[in-house]
């Protein structure tokens, strides 16, 4: 009767089951409706979509668990790759550029955390502000221009099954953390009843800063994976990622109020989001409809969650 095995069973409680079903249904529907859905090339695209949204969403899950929110993830993603790419332009080798990008994500995430914990302003407002600040800085530095060409070596991270491996790694690490470390369990306490957590000696401020920093780093990682295929980096990268991430998180069963939910559910949610995004692209649907679908999904997911909360 070890801790981990029992907890896995607990994790697969009712909450995650519906989404799993949706995912399976969706895969089935898409593969029937769209010819070539499962061709090698499309699977590669799909996994890259899922991986990028998924990685960002895992960071967002931790943030939302503590009762916060991070609207700047897309901006951080864009910042990391656009400013990081200045290194490519300057001729830095890849093993310098990648860490640089991650470092940028770390710093911006840390900055979010710093502001949120030091100034008693809702995370909503702070990240709304930083979202614009970061995007503004990107525009100033890149002057709105695309960055091209990108050396082929940068495609490696985004091709084949590598994105999915990254996602799986990140997922594994954070499932472990959220089930088996003090930090992970205490996040639920912070989101559920922050005052109690403070009284019990949980280092709330420190944990919150860590959580936003993680979100920043993961956004940067997702950006790195995104860079590969298109051959250029644009300042508008990551637009709408915060919406997709929030959607994945709430669809995956994490309560928007904080205090309940988990990383595994978010993974399933992001699989769903990724499938939908990829499917729509392949159906040559106007990309603008993505916003509509994301919005509707978020509303549905939160409505369900609210009903669940009310029953308590």
């Amino acid at each position: 009767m070890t801790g981990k095995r029992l907890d896995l069973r607990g994790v697969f409680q009712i909450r995650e089951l519906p989404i799993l079903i949706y995912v399976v249904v969706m895969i089935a529907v898409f593969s029937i409706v769209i010819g070539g859905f499962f061709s090698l090339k499309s699977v590669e695209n799909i996994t890259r979509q899922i991986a990028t949204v998924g990685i960002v969403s895992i960071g967002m899950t931790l943030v939302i668990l503590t009762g916060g929110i991070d609207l700047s993830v897309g901006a951080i993603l864009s910042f990391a790759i656009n400013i990081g790419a200045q290194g490519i332009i300057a001729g830095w080798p890849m093993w310098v550029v990648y860490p640089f990008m991650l470092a940028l994500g770390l710093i911006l995430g840390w900055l979010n955390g710093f502001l949120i914990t030091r100034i008693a302003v809702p995370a909503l407002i702070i990240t709304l502000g930083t979202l614009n600040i970061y995007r503004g800085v990107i525009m100033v530095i890149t002057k709105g221009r695309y960055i091209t060409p990108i050396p082929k070596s940068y495609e490696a991270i985004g091709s084949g099954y590598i994105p999915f491996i990254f996602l799986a790694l990140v997922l594994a690490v954070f499932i472990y953390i959220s089930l088996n470390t003090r930090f992970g369990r205490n996040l639920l306490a912070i989101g559920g009843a922050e005052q109690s957590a403070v009284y019990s000696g949980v280092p709330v401020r420190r944990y919150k800063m860590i959580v936003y920093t993680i979100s920043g780093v993961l956004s940067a990682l997702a950006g790195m994976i995104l860079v590969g295929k298109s051959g250029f980096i644009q300042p508008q990268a990551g637009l709408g990622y915060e919406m997709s991430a929030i959607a994945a998180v709430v669809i995956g069963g994490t309560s928007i109020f904080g205090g309940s939910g988990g990383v595994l559910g978010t993974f399933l949610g992001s699989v769903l989001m990724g499938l939908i995004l990829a499917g729509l692209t392949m159906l040559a649907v106007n990309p603008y409809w993505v916003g509509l679908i994301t919005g509707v999904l978020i509303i549905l997911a939160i409505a369900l969650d609210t009903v669940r909360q009310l029953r308590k």
Partner: protein
Amino acid sequence: MQRVRSGNWRVLIVLGAVNVVIMGLLTALSPTFLSYGNLSAVMLRMSELAMLAIAETIVLIAGGFDLTIGAVMALSATVFGTLHVAGLPFPAILALALLAGIAVGLLNGFLVVALRLQPFIVTLATMSIVRSVVYGLLKGNVLSQLPERFLDLGYVWVLKIPLLFLVVVSTAVLAIVLLRSTVIGRRMYAIGGNERTAFLSGVHVNRMKYLVYALSGFISSLAGLIYTARIRAVVPDMGITSPLEVITAVLIGGTAITGGKGSVFGSLLGILAMYLLLNGFNLLGLNPFWQVIILGVILIYVVGQENIIRGLRAFLSRGPRRKA
């Protein structure tokens, strides 16, 4: 320790003074500032922002939150433009454009009331949906084919003041009267103050919420029409930065994000202050991208100023913080 209510007066006076100071500075730095041409251009350009600010103020005071203001503005313009291209008569497209805004407002109201969802997330989602619809309808294009009668409105001046600006002024006056002097306005403050108390005191909370979001939608769609008349085109990206700008201005103007407090007048002063700042930047030749950055900083500062100042003082007097 007491804080006197409508001692929003203090905020208003400070804000008024700030505006005067900024105007003074700008006049000194750039002689064209106080010219009739520049001032009327400023007034015009502020029109739609002011309208959106009025809409958002009403929603915030009633304890809600509306991120859809910019999107609805774009939606009404889009509906107006595309229906015109489709050949419908002028009065019809005007009405439908306004109705579109009201419809979105009612949708927001429904989600907030009937499904009891949090306004922020709800309007975040509906904003996304509305934007999608806008892009979908316009297919990314700018629409410049618009009714003559409508475009002419942009040139109508009454007593040397642009007609469009007068529309803004009337909306503002009506909103001020509504909030300060009517029973309905008092109920809005009550709901924002404490919903349960308002309910138990006999206020029809749900009906009021629908009203508030519908009003916001209506005013936002009106703003869209004004904007379109002014720039003589329908642009798909219109209003995309509005939520940030408007909410920042409204918060600067003394409206609380938690509701129950605030005034339209304050919000308008806030818009003026922000707009003068940005106008000043343009005159000084500052990179427009910087504006977004500064807005972000201002937003954070405004909402957190008490705490920022307190934190700064503590930090400076005690040195680096001890372990959390």
